[in-house]
């Protein structure tokens, strides 16, 4: 903060505001003689160049270094953002990825056997961890995996001539927004199933909705309240009884990674968020990776290509007549796959199960500490990797979040799930120390002590304070203009 604060008198200048006509930064190799109008056709050339920043390399470095110092991440502070599994991203993964940076997806497969072997083994390991029979690595994120999974379910029903009759997808009212959004993108009608008083899916209500018109049920388990759906087997049986498929949203897999396998609970499809459960950095909002695992009966519908082993060599199998097709160009976010592969190699079964168990322990420990600080926990029982709390009567969750910013912490997820008023969804993850959880809980208590007025004014010393959202929404200024 030391620098940009002043260097730029209070505000942080845009890179465009640092730009000076004619100033050069990195220079590409010398341009050979060229007459572009001759080569490309004068009529195809743009009349004037794009107004990109013109800065020298040092200014470039100061600009982005300065911006990073106005940014908070896991490496700087505790970041218990519920449902997002903000666990530590090992530095070694960046070194690992660098080993594979210069591979082109279309180079001769015999010159990329290492990359293909890595993908093949990862397909296998992820299937093993989820209890599935086959896995595609193609989807670029969780929501993308959801779409892929639902489309495979759809293709499955279609292959049995049942698609026309099955137009409905059921999701609990506690579901993450991407679940219903995915169902719509997949062309399905939606029905929300209410949660029961115990925070779990209301089994009776669910059964009432079930029938031959239902294509699938989408569940996260543990659900977004951080509670394990104890009746999961009945749910699966009921669904299968009417021919519906069970979809598992793996965003919460960190709670049971290796401890309990969705496949063993009766799920037919699972998507994973490698950028959550398997430590791919979140990168400020991606890139991520959303592999999808399926049971045998759905395998024919996996996107094309799959990586297969043929004797000693690894190959891309494009011969998949029943495939739903492609969901992304090339083979998925390979860079993310390398990180997940490195993670699984290092942890093994022991480390994977231990990590899940300690994620659960950390969440329960923090839950107890927050209760001591006066926070309410609507569904108070042993939770999984996360839990949902509420501030004491009269306090606003938004203010709690802003107060935490002033204390140097990233707040939990707020106002989600929707079924809990003033929800604070807290996911500490297994990589946080007991002391960090205690310091955080103390801060959560301290801000209550500071009182409503202080909270409503918070934060005070962050790079900016509360921002005007309405102004931004009414007539949004979405780019810089001279």
């Amino acid at each position, binding site marked *: 903060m030391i620098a940009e604060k002043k260097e730029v008198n209070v505000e942080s200048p845009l890179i465009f505001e640092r730009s000076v006509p004619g100033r050069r930064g990195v220079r590409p190799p010398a341009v050979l003689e060229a007459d572009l109008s001759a080569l490309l056709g004068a009529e195809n050339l743009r009349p004037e160049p794009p107004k990109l920043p013109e800065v020298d390399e040092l200014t470039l470095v100061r600009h982005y270094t300065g911006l990073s110092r106005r940014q908070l991440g896991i490496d700087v502070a505790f970041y218990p953002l519920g449902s997002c599994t903000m666990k530590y991203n090992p530095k070694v993964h960046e070194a690992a990825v660098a080993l594979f940076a210069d591979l082109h997806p279309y180079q001769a497969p015999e010159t990329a056997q290492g990359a293909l072997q890595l993908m093949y083994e990862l397909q296998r390991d992820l299937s093993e961890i989820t209890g599935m029979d086959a896995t595609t690595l193609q989807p670029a994120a969780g929501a993308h995996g959801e779409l892929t999974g639902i489309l495979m379910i759809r293709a499955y029903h279609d292959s049995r001539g049942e698609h026309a009759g099955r137009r409905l997808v059921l999701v609990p009212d506690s579901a993450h927004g991407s679940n219903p959004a995915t169902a719509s993108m997949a062309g399905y009608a939606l029905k929300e199933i209410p949660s029961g008083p115990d925070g779990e899916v209301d089994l009776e209500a669910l059964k009432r909705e079930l029938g031959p018109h239902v294509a699938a049920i989408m569940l996260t388990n543990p659900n977004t309240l951080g509670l394990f759906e104890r009746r999961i087997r009945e749910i699966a049986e009921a669904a299968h009884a009417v021919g519906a498929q069970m979809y598992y949203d793996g965003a919460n897999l960190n709670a049971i990674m290796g401890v309990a396998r969705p496949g063993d609970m009766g799920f037919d499809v699972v998507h994973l968020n490698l950028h959550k459960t398997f430590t791919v950095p979140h990168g400020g909002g991606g890139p991520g990776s959303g592999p999808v695992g399926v049971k045998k009966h759905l395998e024919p519908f996996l996107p094309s290509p799959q990586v297969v082993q043929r004797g000693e060599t690894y190959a891309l199998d494009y011969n998949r007549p029943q495939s739903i097709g492609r969901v992304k160009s090339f083979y998925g976010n390979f860079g993310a796959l390398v990180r997940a592969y490195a993670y699984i190699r290092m942890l093994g079964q022991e480390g994977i199960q231990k990590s899940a168990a300690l994620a659960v*322990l950390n969440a329960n420990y923090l839950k107890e500490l927050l209760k001591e600080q006066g926070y309410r926990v609507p569904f108070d029982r042993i939770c999984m990797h996360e839990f949902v709390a509420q501030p004491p009567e009269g306090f606003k969750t938004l203010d709690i979040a802003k107060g935490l910013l002033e204390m140097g912490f990233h707040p939990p997820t707020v106002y989600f799930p929707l079924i809990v008023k003033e929800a604070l969804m807290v996911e500490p993850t297994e990589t946080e120390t007991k002391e960090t959880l205690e310091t955080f809980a103390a801060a959560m208590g301290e801000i209550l002590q500071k009182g409503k007025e202080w909270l409503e004014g918070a934060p005070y010393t962050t790079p900016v304070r509360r921002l005007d959202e309405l102004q931004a929404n009414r007539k949004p200024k979405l780019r810089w203009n001279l």
Partner: protein
Amino acid sequence: MDYTPHTPQDLEAMLAKVGAKDLRDLFHDLPQDLIFPELDLPEPLTEAEMMRSLRELAAKNASAATSFLGGGLRAHYVPAAVVPLAARAEFISAYTPYQPEVSQGLLQAIFEYQTMISELTGLPVSNASLYDGSTALAEGVLLALRETGRNKVLVSQGVHPEYREVLKTYLDAIGAELEEIGLRDGKASSVQVSADVGVVVGANPNFLGAIENLAPLADAAHAAGALFVAVVDALSLAVLKTPGSYGADIAVGEGQPLGNAMAFGGPQFGFMAVRENLVRQLPGRLVAETSDVDGKRGYILTLQAREQYIRRGKAKSNVTTNAQLTALMGAVYLAALGPQGLEEVATRSVVNAHELAKRLTAIPGVRQVTPEPYFCEFVLELPKNPVQVRSELAGRGIHAAVPVPAEYGENLALFAATEVHTKKDLAGLEAALLEVLA
């Protein structure tokens, strides 16, 4: 080796506090017959062991850093400053900037990115990024169908075959109709756009590398009340007309040429820019400038009502995590090179490609399929199976000749040249191909 910090003492104290007798006890809500299964996974490794085994895997790959491969990704040089800056710990270890007060670094960087994409495409509004070029196209088409309320799509065969496959997957999902516009002499033929068509899609340069005049296609679309989507090569926009200038309502593309490694196909980022009036239909994140309670300038996520976590089933898309870090690399790259640097990269790529084509078409039996003018990729007809040719070139340490799908013809191979190539490289490929085809 794992990353949990718990000491035995920690465990004991924490278990006591939560009232569990052991870790297994924390899972008593789960079906007890299922938990802690034996997993068939390799033995755990230490960091050093893992890195060594990965190095061994990596040694089974050949670098394509100076390859002549194209078709969506190319070997461009990524300046050394890009990764250290974009991957600063605070950026790489953050998530979606829901808390703007402590996310100004990222939010401002995205705002700047949006501006750069807007400048490149000649369209006023860019989102914060999408997964990749292919999904950006699919999202762009869905946007157009939402806006027009129609259900039919015309797409040029000039669009990357894999992009069209992805588009088909997305359109099948909602039961929309996909019709293709064939190529004539390597360019999209003119079409009749019927009134039920919601969107027309063209590519520039197209998959064969040819530069097309898409204005007629755009006009035809508009005449029929449809929107026009242009799939463009990010680098080409340094010198070629902007999609905005020839009537595109939506421009989409792959960001890899802008400072991203090829990484065996991903991750890179997809970009999308649209006309003002489409902003509320836009999928994905969007950052706006605003001010804080003290009147200080700041940046914030905006129009969130478009997104799944607010609108759920009615959201514009299910996209949540997108490609922020790789898009940031794109922004750092553009800022590092500036307009002149980018133009020089484009120009050198074009010049190299044209010299390469000249050299290779001089080889007996080799014929250029891509019509003039073309950018930095082109397709040749070879007197021999391209899969075979690619392998034999690889055997000589040169990566080139991407086999082109049969829909475009027999024995076709795609070549690309970029700023990384020297005359020596071009001559090297020429010599190698001569041998291989001899």
